[in-house]
């Protein structure tokens, strides 16, 4: 168990900057999600914490010890690979035992620890099986047991659930979180799946083009994204662009949008607002009553039904605003209908520094 600190880490591959001055403190015992599109540098960062790659500059500290130049086998980390990388020539138990056995621990101790780890991932009875006799979810559990049985200082997961199908993935998210809590190990995982990051992580770092865009608890990033990228990459967001005013922004057609805090850039500059689709209320233009929040008029261009919810696409002077509505039995709006959208000032996230 240890805190992991990455400070000012940069890494270039030829002319491409894979990581550009990234600093993150991964809290002791926390479950940290590194989120970003492919090529954002999240995997490079994970492999550097693991010790498969070394930074050009900057420092990596695990539990107070600088490890930038320490090779992977001496770092005492545990890692779960995207395709699990189970040793095909060994049984499940031997796979889990590998890390203890290369350390030269006593046979009896190894057997006891292996059994404990397999019980923890609920595979206690499958020790004698070979990896190819297991399902994808079971392999995932074996890989996890193998990574934590050595009591590493930090657990690294590289897209841990991407090889599983949807239903299993949701189960494993819960399971992974339970095991992580139970062991209390500092965990860093890489994903491109925002839902995975939101469900599992207690802190998220969003990377883009080798830079850290924003980091913090999932709710904080979701509620207060500091950039259009963060707003749209983590969750869905409508971006409204315009001119900064004292109290918010003014759209091109003159509509004023109020936000809780005025832009620091000062009036006159460019600014934008993000509004989550589920925060917007949609009513037909005929039923509209005046409200003190923000308001926009538009026309429904499309409605997509998704079981428990529907998404309305509302056009207003060339822009499209998405609105997510729970299917609670109230009257449905039809395509082509004139509507009014309203949402509160508090739901309006002002984004500065474009």
């Amino acid at each position, binding site marked *: 168990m240890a805190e992991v600190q990455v400070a000012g880490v940069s890494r270039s591959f030829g002319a491409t900057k894979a990581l550009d001055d990234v600093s993150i403190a991964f809290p002791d015992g926390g479950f940290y999600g590194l989120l970003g599109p492919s090529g954002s540098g999240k995997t490079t960062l994970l492999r550097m914490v693991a010790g498969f790659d070394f930074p050009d500059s900057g420092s990596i500290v695990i539990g107070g010890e600088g490890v930038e130049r320490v090779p992977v086998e001496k770092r005492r980390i*545990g*890692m779960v690979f995207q*395709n699990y990388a*189970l*040793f095909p020539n060994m049984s499940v138990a031997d796979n889990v035992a590998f890390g203890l056995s290369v350390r030269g621990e006593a046979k009896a101790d190894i057997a006891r620890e292996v059994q404990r780890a397999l019980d923890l991932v609920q595979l206690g009875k499958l020790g004698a099986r070979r990896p190819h006799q297991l399902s994808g979810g079971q392999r995932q559990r074996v890989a996890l047991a*193998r990574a934590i049985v050595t009591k590493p200082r930090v657990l690294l997961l590289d897209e841990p659930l991407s090889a599983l199908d949807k239903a299993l993935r949701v189960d494993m998210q819960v399971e992974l979180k339970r095991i992580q809590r139970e062991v209390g190990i500092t965990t860093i995982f890489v994903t491109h799946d925002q839902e995975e990051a939101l469900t599992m992580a207690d802190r998220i770092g969003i990377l883009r083009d080798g830079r850290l865009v924003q980091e913090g608890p999932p709710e904080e990033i979701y509620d207060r994204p500091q950039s259009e990228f963060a707003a749209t990459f983590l969750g869905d967001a409508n971006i409204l662009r315009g001119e900064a005013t004292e109290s918010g922004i003014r759209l091109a057609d003159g509509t004023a949008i109020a936000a809780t805090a005025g832009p620091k850039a000062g009036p006159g500059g460019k600014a934008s607002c993000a509004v989550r689709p589920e925060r917007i209320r949609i009513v037909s233009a005929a039923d509209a009553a005046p409200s003190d929040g923000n308001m926009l008029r538009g026309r429904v261009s499309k409605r997509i039904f998704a079981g428990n919810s529907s998404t309305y696409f509302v056009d207003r002077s060339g822009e499209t605003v998405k609105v997510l509505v729970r299917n609670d039995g109230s009257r449905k709006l039809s395509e082509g209908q004139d509507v009014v959208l309203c949402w509160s000032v508090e739901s309006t996230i002002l984004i500065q520094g474009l």
Partner: protein
Amino acid sequence: MALTRVLEWLGRIYIWLLLAFLYLPIVIMALMSFNVSPFYQLPFEWTTRWYVALMGNDQLITATWNSIRIAVITTLISTVLGTAASLALYRYEFRGKKFLQALLFPPIAIPWLITGTAMLIFFFAIGIGRGLHAILLGHVALALPYVIVVVSARLQTFAPELEEAARSLGANQWQVTRRVTLPWIMPGVIAGGLFAFAVSFDQFVVSYFLSTPGQTTLPVEIYAAIRKGFTPEINAVSTVIIVVSMALMLLTARYFKFGGEK
């Protein structure tokens, strides 16, 4: 339907003719090694006297032991060196790697006659000369490319994350190689070793160039014996060699077949 049946039968006949073409001479030779008449005369009368005579033929026996010793040592050296070379080519990036890999194939295609001549001249020039040690050196050089090609082919199917996983669990380079990489490529290593053994044990041309009268291998000795005058002991020793070679080749085939299924 009728046509299909006819084609099927033609196919079967073809296979049997092919096998007969391949194996009939060998079968006849093996039978004649158990025949009383030294001049291939019939009727066939069973005897093992040529095998007994073979036991008393010191030159053939010595040559056989030379062949076996050289083949075994060649196999050991070229398998170890070749596997190490394949691992190095697999793991590391270095200047001239592509060139080096390309250079591995031509020796397989160069006629042994030319390789043998070149080795003879070279060994004389640098003072190694001829003899069993020269034959051994030559055989290792001939066998190495086969081992490297076969082991490298097997390594292509190896997932590099396995080595990374082993390292992340604290294994050092040697533990990674011994416990993860080698078990995976073992079918390739064994197949490569069998190739090396076959290349050495069946080698005539290069051995012929590099042997001296007292220090020679079985194929060269057989050739010398035939020139002096044919004896059925040669049938006997050839039968022994064929049995050994075929057993080895069947083993190789087995490892190639099952190699990919793990």
